[in-house]
Structures are given as structure tokens and as C-alpha cells.
């Protein structure tokens, strides 16, 4: 905690940073804010929308839905993905479902309850107004997706089916088998394809954003590398939307896809976009434990499995018996024991931390003693094999393919893994970053989940931002710029940015060391997991802050990137991403170190209740921490946005 110099942004207010961030949350009663604000925002006349060019980076749920919706409104949209098709984005891997306050099940759900659950689930570290808006538009999302033909699960009467999910006591989760993310993404991808066919969206595939370009402090374009030809080029627009996902791969092993990275967001950060709450990372409790050191990624099993599976470990330490030989009396169903009300359905952070506790105690199961059991024997006995197969068949098959074990016969082994990152680019109520004209939506921003995201909320937020929020808010900012041309590509700011990206590319290729990018990524991941993982301590974070720079120096001295920059070169792509992960990891450690409290996914061992639960410090930390970049080698400045809670009373979360 040393970085309180002003950086021209006013004096430090409380030793934790200064509060200069304007969230632009509108006045008025919470339930009316969004409705009233939609009316008060400026509009762009339909005929004038075509005079604006918008760049969208990323084609996951947020990016594809935004690009499609903006182009339907009449804006000219250019959309970029580093994949070969928009349909590959990692939103596709979300399994469980999407929340909406439809109350179709008549069990007492409402917009207010979804809002309340999400603020509480986020451990009171999210911005109330954003969360309320999210809960409101959740209704529209389901309508939109159903109309697009998303094959949601149905009841026999033909109406939509719902199920329950962690952190909620109502059934509000809509799903399409175990492939909800896939189906929602295909819906957004198809909406985008419709606009591409209509000629109103230009789609650039296998093209990676490597820099944000600004002129006079305002975003005016991006620099990209064509991953096939290696060509580095600039693109201009009136606004830039970053929908580039989360940074879970900083841990190396995570449930993210291999290509997920922080690069677009990080390069925007280096150009002036504040990066918020970097230490808020989510561990998903139900992943398949690693099997060996060559493991390249971890696979998540849907959280919905906790509806019917019972989690336990043997009471006895290092119990090597086969699970069916361990009598019930010698098993510890630790979640049911500690949290009788929620049982196995406690929120993700609580479930994860408890798994770590029992494994650290030496009660872990499996060949590497690195998991806990998720046992379906009871539900199979009660409902029968076919009923369980109908509900979870594809998940059980996936588990068996990966582990070689049959979960109908022996309990699954699960362990937490990094899954989602709540932190990201700071955005105001309009989803604009601190760089005017640069927006961030979906997982890439920090906005709606606070310190912990509830299940089935990521899909909801990505689509809320893309379909129903950004298309309104971007108009308010663009309306004032009517008649302004885009900055021409001949402007020196573009030549300068292109030349810097070219230099960075050449730098990677010319190091000529001995180690692969993956080697460095793996080593970095171990430090980040050990020190900035499920449990953080001051000593561990200090250790990370000394070990990461040392490894980073080695990276720049001993990296080997074979091949050239003039064709497909995945080592080169990864080198840029890992270089950014090094810088991000340091920020995560600093952010975690300054936040002297435990909240949601950020658990500081020094701050826990006598029962071992997260102990918040609302007096000093009910705020967002947003970090301002200066230059390489200078520590970022920490700014704060105070969080006000007018609707939800701050209480110690309890799921007992």
C-alpha cells in the first residue's frame, strides 16, 4: 500500500486512494432509475445512426449480442474475433443456465428478489443500480432468446421449464440441457450472421486486437494482427466496445478455453482505462481435479449437479478405501453439516473454500488426494438410473470420458478451479470505461457481480449488456458527436500505434532464449494459484510480488518464440498474452494486498469470523478499487468508487 500519489486526479482521500470516479448512476428511486434514465438519455435519429461507426471486439454473448443489436439499430459495426468463427467464443462452454426473474414457477420470485440475491451473493461489493438494471432486463433476455429459437427446456404443456441454482431459494434458472451457453451463443451468433448477411456488420475473423488507439484522450480505434497473414493494421471508429471476456487463464490451469486472455482489456488499461477489483476471482467448486502435471486445462462440471449430488469426504485422514467401503458413519457430509439450510447449494465461494479446508486437512480423495466426492448413489436409488441419466446424462458421460470412471457406479471426484473473474475494466452506468468512447461489456468489465458471481448470472449479464443496455447508453454519448467524422487512418496516432505493435512483435521474436511461452505461463500460474488463489495472506501476496517480477524478467530474457511474424504462429500469439498476464498478476496481488478484508471470492486468511467465514470490513472497504496505469515500472494508482447501499442492508452473509 504505497501508491497514493495523485497522478493529477486529486488528493488521496483516506489512504486507500482517491474518489474521483463518476459512476453516472442516475438519481431517483432504485426501481425507476433505468426506466427514467432511458427516457432522459439523448437519442440518435434512425437516419443518423448510419453515420456512426462502432468497433466491437469479441463475439461471445456480450460482443455478438451487442454487435447484432447495434447494427439492427442502424449503426455501422465492425466486429473482431481471434477465432475462426464467432461461434467459438468461450461463452459456448457455459453449461447450467441463465437466471431471469420471470416467476413462472409461482414461487415468489421478482425483479427485487433477483436484485437482492445478486447483491447479497456478490457479498455487497457491487453497484446496486447496475444490479437492479440487470434484474430488470433479465425478463427481456428470456423473451428475446426464446424468440430467436433457443431450444430451452420445456414442460409437457410447452411452456418453459426452470430449475434452482446455488445462492437462491427460488427456481429461476432457464436452461437448454447442459448446453445453455452454447445455445444462447448460437442465438447471438445467428443474430449476428443475419446482420452480416444484410451487409450491416463487417466481420473480421482470426484477427486479434493488440492495442487501443486514442486521440486527445478519446478512443478512436484499435490495432489488430491478422493471425493468418501476420498483417498489423489499424481500424477507426467513433466508439470501441471491448467484449473480450475474463482473465482466469492468468492461473494457467482454469476452466477457461486455451485462448482466453486479458490482452485487449489490458492494452486498453495501458491506454488509460482503469482496471477494477482485479483480486475478485471466482473459483468454481465442481471441477474435475487435475490428473497430472501436463494437464492443460480443467473441466467444469455444471453446478446444477449439486442439486442432487451429495458432497462428502472420509472422516479419517488419508483414507485409501474405495468409497463404497466407507460406511456412512465414517463420512463427513461437511456442507450439509455446516449449512443445514442451504446444504450442498451454498454459493460457490463457500463451497469452494470448504473443499479446500477438508483437502488441506488431508481428507482429500483420488489418486492425488486432491478432490472431494460428489455422490449420486442416493438419488440414483431414489429416482432410478434413467431419471438421473435424463437430467445429467451428458455431464456424466463427459466425466467418464475424462477420468475413465463411471459416476453412476462410483462418486465423482471434484475440486474447485478458477472459472470466472469478477474484476475487469472499470465502467460507469453507461458501461463506458475511463477512456471516453471506449466501452466494456460482459465478463471483461467489473460491473455487476461484486466480489462473487452467482451461478447462471454470467450469461444473464453478457446478454443484458449486449442486447439491452449498451444499445441505449452508447446512443447518449454518440448523440453529442453527430457530424464528427472518424479520425482518419492517415492520422499519426494510428501510424504510431501500429509501429509500437510491430516493435513489440519483433521483440518477442528476437529474444531467442531457451524456454517456451507455455513453460513461463505454467510457472506464473503456479505462483498466482498458490498466492492469489482461494485463500490469500499478506505474506503470500508479498511473496507473489517478489516472485512474479523475477519470473517476468526471466521471460523477457529467456523466452523462445520460433517462426516468424508473417504467418500463423501460435507461440507468438501466446507470448503477447502471457506478457500481459505478468503485469495483471502483479496488479491482482497489489489489489488483494490492499483489500484488508475478506469478501466473496477474495478470502484473506487474516480476516475471518471465528467460524472461518469471510469477514468483510464495510467501514473501510465498501468500495470499488480502480487502478490507473502510468507506465511500465511504475506502480498503478488506486482510485476508489464508494458503494452506496440504499436497498439492501449490509449484513454478514449467512447460508446456515
Amino acid at each position, binding site marked *: 500500500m504505497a501508491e497514493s500519489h495523485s497522478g493529477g486526479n486529486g488528493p488521496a482521500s483516506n489512504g486507500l486512494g482517491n474518489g474521483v470516479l463518476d459512476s453516472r448512476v442516475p438519481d431517483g428511486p432504485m426501481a425507476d432509475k433505468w426506466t427514467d434514465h432511458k427516457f432522459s438519455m439523448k437519442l440518435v435519429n434512425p437516419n443518423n445512426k448510419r453515420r456512426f461507426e462502432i468497433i466491437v471486439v469479441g463475439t461471445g454473448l456480450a460482443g455478438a449480442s451487442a454487435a*447484432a*443489436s447495434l447494427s*439492427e439499430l442502424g449503426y455501422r459495426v465492425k466486429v473482431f474475433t481471434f*477465432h475462426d*468463427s464467432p*461461434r*467459438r467464443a468461450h461463452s459456448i*462452454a457455459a453449461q447450467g443456465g441463465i437466471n431471469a426473474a*420471470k416467476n*413462472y414457477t409461482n414461487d415468489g420470485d421478482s425483479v427485487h428478489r433477483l436484485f437482492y440475491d445478486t447483491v447479497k451473493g456478490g457479498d455487497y461489493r457491487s453497484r446496486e443500480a447496475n444490479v437492479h438494471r440487470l434484474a430488470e432486463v433479465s425478463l*427481456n433476455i*428470456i*423473451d428475446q432468446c*426464446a*424468440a*430467436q*429459437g433457443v*431450444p*430451452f*427446456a*420445456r*414442460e409437457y404443456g*410447452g411452456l418453459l421449464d426452470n430449475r434452482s441454482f446455488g445462492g437462491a431459494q427460488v427456481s429461476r434458472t432457464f436452461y*437448454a*440441457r447442459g*448446453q445453455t451457453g*452454447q445455445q444462447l451463443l*448460437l442465438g447471438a451468433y*445467428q443474430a449476428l*450472421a*443475419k446482420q452480416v*448477411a444484410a451487409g450491416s456488420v463487417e*466481420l473480421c475473423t482470426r484477427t486479434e486486437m493488440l492495442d487501443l488507439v486514442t486521440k486527445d484522450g478519446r478512443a478512436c480505434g484499435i490495432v489488430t494482427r491478422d493471425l493468418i497473414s501476420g498483417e498489423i493494421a489499424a481500424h477507426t471508429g467513433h466508439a470501441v466496445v471491448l467484449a473480450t471476456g475474463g482473465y482466469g487463464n492468468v492461473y494457467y490451469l482454469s*476452466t477457461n478455453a*486455451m485462448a482466453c486472455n486479458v490482452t485487449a482489456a489490458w492494452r486498453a488499461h495501458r491506454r488509460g482505462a482503469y482496471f477494477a477489483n482485479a483480486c475478485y476471482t471466482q473459483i468454481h467448486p465442481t471441477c474435475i481435479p487435475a*490428473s*497430472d502435471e*501436463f494437464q*492443460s486445462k480443467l473441466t467444469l462440471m455444471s453446478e446444477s449437479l449439486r442439486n442432487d449430488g451429495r458432497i462428502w469426504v472420509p472422516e479419517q485422514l488419508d483414507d485409501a478405501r474405495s468409497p463404497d467401503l466407507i460406511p456412512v458413519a465414517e463420512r463427513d457430509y461437511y456442507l450439509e453439516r455446516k449449512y443445514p439450510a442451504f446444504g450442498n447449494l451454498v454459493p460457490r465461494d463457500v463451497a469452494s473454500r470448504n473443499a479446500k479446508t477438508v483437502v488441506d486437512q488431508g481428507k482429500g480423495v483420488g*489418486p492425488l488426494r486432491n478432490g472431494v466426492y460428489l455422490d449420486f448413489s442416493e438419488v440414483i436409488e431414489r429416482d432410478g438410473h434413467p431419471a438421473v441419466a435424463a437430467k445429467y446424462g451428458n455431464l456424466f*458421460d463427459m466425466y467418464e*470420458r*475424462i*477420468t*475413465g*470412471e*463411471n459416476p*453412476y*457406479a*462410483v462418486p465423482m471426484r471434484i475440486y474447485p478451479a478458477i472459472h470466472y473473474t469478477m474484476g475487469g475494466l472499470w465502467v460507469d452506468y453507461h458501461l463506458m470505461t475511463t477512456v471516453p468512447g471506449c466501452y466494456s461489456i460482459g465478463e471483461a468489465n467489473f460491473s455487476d457481480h461484486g466480489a462473487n458471481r452467482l451461478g447462471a448470472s454470467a450469461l444473464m449479464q453478457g446478454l443484458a449488456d449486449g*442486447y439491452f443496455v449498451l*444499445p441505449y447508453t452508447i446512443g447518449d454519448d454518440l448523440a453529442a458527436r453527430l457530424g464528427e467524422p472518424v479520425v482518419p487512418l492517415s492520422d499519426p496516432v494510428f501510424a504510431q500505434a501500429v509501429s509500437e505493435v510491430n516493435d513489440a512483435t519483433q521483440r518477442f521474436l528476437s529474444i531467442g532464449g531457451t*524456454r*517456451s511461452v*507455455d513453460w513461463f505461463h505454467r510457472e506464473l500460474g503456479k505462483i498466482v494459484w498458490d498466492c492469489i488463489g482461494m485463500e490469500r495472506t499478506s505474506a503470500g501476496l508479498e511473496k507473489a510480488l517478489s516472485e512474479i517480477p523475477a519470473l517476468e524478467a526471466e521471460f523477457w530474457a529467456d523466452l*523462445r518464440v*520460433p*517462426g516468424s511474424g508473417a504467418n*500463423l504462429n501460435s*507461440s507468438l500469439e501466446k507470448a503477447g498474452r502471457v506478457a500481459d498476464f505478468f503485469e495483471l498478476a502483479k496488479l491482482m496481488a497489489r489489489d488483494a494486498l490492499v483489500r484488508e478484508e475478506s469478501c466473496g471470492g477474495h478470502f484473506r486468511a487474516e480476516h475471518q469470523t471465528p467460524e472461518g467465514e469471510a469477514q468483510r470490513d464495510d467501514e473501510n472497504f465498501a468500495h470499488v478499487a480502480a487502478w490507473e496505469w502510468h507506465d511500465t515500472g511504475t506502480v498503478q494508482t488506486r482510485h476508489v468508487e464508494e458503494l452506496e447501499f440504499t436497498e439492501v442492508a449490509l449484513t454478514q452473509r449467512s447460508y446456515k
Partner: protein
Amino acid sequence: MSGTNGQASHGGTLSLTLRIWRQDGPDAPGRFHTFDAPNISEDMSFLELLDIINERLIEGGDVPIEFDHDCREGICGMCSLMINGRAHGHELATTTCQLHMRKFTDGDVITVEPFRAKAFPVVRDLVVDRSSFDRIIEAGGYISVNTGAVGDANQTPVPKEAADTSMDAAACIGCGACVAACPNSAAQLFTSAKLAHLNLIPQGQPQRWERTEAMVETMEQFFGSCTNHGECTEACPKEISLDFIAFMNRDYVKAKIKNRKLTGQS
């Protein structure tokens, strides 16, 4: 490899020989390179095996093998490969990323090639260009509802059977194994899966006939013709049924008539 009680034995290793196709670009000549892969863990996935080979290539100063992959959990459709002549390898209903080495035998010689089809040109090594699939979707693989222009979701009931079959078809991951496995490089399974997804449900009816004609005819610009071999469904990691091709063919014939009638022609 399963032991008693459905529990696997862990920790075994294999020694393998790989013959891998390498090609610098779409027009460059390609050839097989042979690699020894000793001490490969049975718990490793096929792509992790390629990771290890690449790691060794880089350490030895060579250029690693390019291959497409991303989610590594069988859903993004990015991974591909002909493994011993079979799209995604010999395991049924499995993508390459989910194919584990315990399914191979010590001493195996494994041949690895890119997906082969004129419509999927090789980009480099094992990477191919499958953007022709996007062109088929752009031709009509959507329901034209603009954001916000819809009523409450439950105002349109969908019979459960239709929703379930629609979902069976919508499970397609767009990997292209169907094309790679087909002796004619036909894309009927991919195209019919999208058509069945949208044509079976009420929301898809207004554009049904227009969609069918446009998608089928765009498909034919890129891909070969179907001669009912059924290799596609055998190779499909999501077990998309051949029945959907029959469904598409029926809809296509109807579409040729209905699209004329819709515009007032007889």
C-alpha cells in the same frame, strides 16, 4: 483400462510414434513428419500429447505444429484432426480434445492429418479454414427477430417433443467432422442440423421455406453431394442423427414449391 467398480487405474504410460502432416501454407506442398512420444500418460488428452511434442520442438529450436483447439471440453468445435484416418479419432461421440490416451495401446503408430475437404483449405499444418460453414448460416440459419421486438416467452408454447428434437439438432458444434468423414465432402449433416433446429419449432415457421432453399443452395456452392453413406453421423462427436438429412431433403422439395406459391406463382 477400467478396474473394478468402474474406477480407473491411473498412472500408466504409453510409448507412441506419431506421423503428423506438416504444411507451410495453403499452396505449399505438405508431408508427414515422424515423432517419437515416449512416456505418455494415459490420463492425457490427445491435444495434451500434441502440446508435449510442441514443447519438445520449441526446446529443440524447431517450429511447433499448428493445430486448432480452444475449449478442450468438447463444445467449441474448434479442434479437428483425422487420427488414423478417422475424424476426431476412433472413439464414438468424442471430439479430439476429449480423446484420452488410455484409448490407445503401447507401441501404437498414430497418423495425424488435417480435415480433408476442398471447402476446408489447409491454412497451416493441421489448421483448416472452415468459414464456409459461416456462409451457410449467413444464408438463413437464423430467425429474424430484432432485439426487443418480441412478446413474453411463454406466449409461444413449444411442444416438448419438438423442443427436444430441435435441441438434438442444435447440439451441433460446427466442427466439420461430418464433412471430413464424407467421401464426397458433403455438408448435409451440418446444414440439416441447423435447419431442423429452426424448422421444427413454431418460431422458425415464418422463414422456414426461404431458409431451407437458401441454406441448401449455399451449401451446394461449397460442398459435395450426399450419397447416403452415413459416415457423417458415425464421425459426429455430438451424434447428430442422419434423420435430419431426410428431414432437410423433404423440406427442400416442399420449399421449391412453397416459395413459388408464397410469391403468387403457381
